[in-house]
């Protein structure tokens, strides 16, 4: 472990395809010659809890968790969970691509606590990261269920990752479920990336 690993984090809520996404990126990274390490937070992901995946690209197994401030790319499938991860891990080199599709918590569902204002969340993200992109809103049902692949498309289109577009596409092609929807969402993300500008500081 000589060079510093390239650190990617995927955050969201159980059911958003967090683990599938880390698998897709990891296999693509393998095709590009990396030895990825995937650290995952398990246990509660099926019961409404937050899910965080640490994907670290190096030439051998690294420590499973990204050190504080060492995050390179943050893929936020849900705004609140994106911010939660940024508080703990973002640093001077973090580029964040975060969806504005909010998922209620038990308390916001009940109306007991207000879900924080999205403008506040993204402003706080901008303070914590080097660059922040707000993913364009997706509306149709297939795109919402493949939001993860859409965000990966954006990240790849923005040329943020050290993994090649071709390897990621090949990685999606070998998925056993929902391959077509994922490929479509990925392509759509790639396309939308060209018009996407970072939030101003």
């Amino acid at each position, binding site marked *: 472990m000589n060079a*510093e690993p390239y650190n990617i984090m995927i955050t969201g809520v159980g059911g958003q395809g967090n683990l599938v996404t880390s698998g897709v990126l990891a*296999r693509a990274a393998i095709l590009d010659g990396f030895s990825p390490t995937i*650290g995952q937070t398990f246990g509660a992901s099926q*019961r409404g809890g937050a899910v965080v995946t640490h994907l670290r690209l190096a030439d051998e197994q690294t420590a499973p968790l990204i*050190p504080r401030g060492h995050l390179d790319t943050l893929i936020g499938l849900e705004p609140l969970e994106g*911010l939660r991860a940024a508080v703990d891990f973002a640093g001077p080199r973090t580029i964040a691509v975060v969806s504005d599709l909010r998922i209620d918590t*038990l308390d916001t569902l009940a109306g007991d606590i207000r879900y924080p204002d999205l403008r506040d969340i993204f402003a706080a993200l901008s*303070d914590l990261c080097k660059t922040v992109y707000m993913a364009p809103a997706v509306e149709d049902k297939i795109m919402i269920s493949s939001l993860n692949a859409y965000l990966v498309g954006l990240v790849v289109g923005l040329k943020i990752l050290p993994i090649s577009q071709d390897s990621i596409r090949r990685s999606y092609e*070998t998925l056993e479920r929902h391959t077509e929807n994922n490929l479509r969402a990925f392509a759509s993300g790639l396309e939308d990336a060209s018009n996407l500008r970072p939030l101003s500081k």
Partner: protein
Amino acid sequence: MILESVLRDVHGKNIELKDMDYQAGQRVLMSGNEAIARGAVEAGVGFCSSYPGTPATEIASTLMKWARDTGMYVEWSTNEKVALEAAAAASWAGVPAMCSMKSLGLNVAADFLLNVNLSGTGTGGLVLVVCDDPRGHSSSNEQDSRFYAKAAKIPLLEPATAQQAKDIIPYAFSLSKRMGIPVMVRSTTRLSHTQAMVSLGAPSELQITIEETLPRHLFNVPDPHLRNRDLQEKLRRIAREFATSQWNLLPPDGGDSPLTVVSSGISQLYVREALREVDAQKVRHFGVVTTFPLPSELVERVMADNKEALFVEEVDPFLEDEFRIQATYGTPMDIVFHGKHDGFVPSWGELNTDIIAQSLRRLRGMPSEIDGERERAREHASSLLIPRPLTFCAGCTHRNVYWALRKVRKRLDGNLVVTGDIGCYSLGVFYDQAMDTMQAMGSGIGTASGLGQLSRFGHKARVATIAGDSTFFHACLPGLVNARHTNADVLFIIVDNKTTAMTGFQPHPGSDDDEGHRLVSLRKMVEAVEPDMLSVVDGDDIPALIEAFHTSVKERGLKVVIVDSHCRLREGRLEDKSDLLQRVVIDEDMCRGEKCGICVKQYSCVALAWDSERERPVMVEDQCVRCGACIDVCPYGAIRRAR
């Protein structure tokens, strides 16, 4: 949580285990647990037994997936003690046997372990894999199970990487076979659940020679003390073997390096990264993998001429204490020890690179890196964060059970104690504190049977306890028999969803199965103890639940209510039948809106949301499973089936 990933090669294709001969040398992305399972295949294991429990579950479930191709016998045993006993027996008969479990499982199996260590294992060898859960991500404690290895005087290996987790299993078997005792391999959550690249070795063909006669003297009487003496002699031989072991990470010889960081298991990876980050000059790293018995000769050699040592391990100072013991005899070590005793490393919770980097900075008198502006940004952002609490799934019948208990508690003016147990329904401790206690598996009925004796001393509250079906078979039977035999005043609620839902739907004795397992009827087992009252109630029927609980909890004696429960996650996976049911809707004319809020704010199904603008509840259609349980929750009849 289930680990969905199956073994894949770099092209994402499932590995064909039939072609295992071609796989040696292939590099595959694997979790630590999958790597341990692969290690078992390469070691030629013929028998594997386990009870599901995070973070250990995927070792046995992966082997089960491969069983058809490997010919291995793999079972979910009723509990960890039975699992270890079954595996030991296989070993006696010549079959290489592995037994995997989570930390708390070893508490259950410990009685047998502290006997079979003396009696000995067989020609098959026996490897016990225990997965600890520092921080208790999915556990009710964060115990350090390494002390069991010391208590049982058996060798303990702590692999640091997924690769090593695989590679060490065949060695563990070789050691067990040669020494005739169980070998313990200890993992932690971050090793078990982290995926990394693993170079595969060749799988071993199953070559099993059944021993027609068991080894002699598989009992410790009449001279267990002599067995203890002999076991200690084995340990001394193993310590010498460990001293030349290839598994430990040794610092380069010589050099002027006053500080050695000593790590165990996956902490080795945290130390490696922290040393790079802090750029600590002249610090050596000794990564111990053969933790117990401590390889004294090696320790003496590595630590010679050192002035300071820092111990990095999860959770307790196990290795640190072994070093401290060694420093008091043999060649004296003039070393200052740092670690958990002097607070340089936290003695609770998980470790990570940051914590160890901070320990190194403190030890070296280097300032910690704090960026004031960033800290302020963090603080501001933290103020926006709201919690995301765990809850029951939409339509989960456990919610209905706790809702009903809440109603019964009200009817009893609060005079109700509910003792709890381990499973998804443990979330009841968060649901209006409907569940008052939660310790080990089976403790619900055990503690209830104690409380059920106390009315003679003036204890007024009625006593109820709750357990799931898998837990019932695992550990509730002795408690139930005790409650019956002693005539305890207890209502025992069994939430029977016919699967081990918490860990990913493993079958258990009471679940349906088309693979030749015989179903053991939970109800008939309950009937056999002849409770004073027994009823079976549908978990979707809230009025019936309230009635059953209330009627029975008032009566003296042992009452049992079996709740016919539904796991929506499992139903969703098998076949989503909700389309066959009429939609559940809220009648806006009947709903009292902000004046009530019972459905959203008290019953709290995630398929019911509060529309703050209109101050009304709304049905979240894509969450609703159309069970209709909430229809009876609304006192105004506003929730109903669509017509």
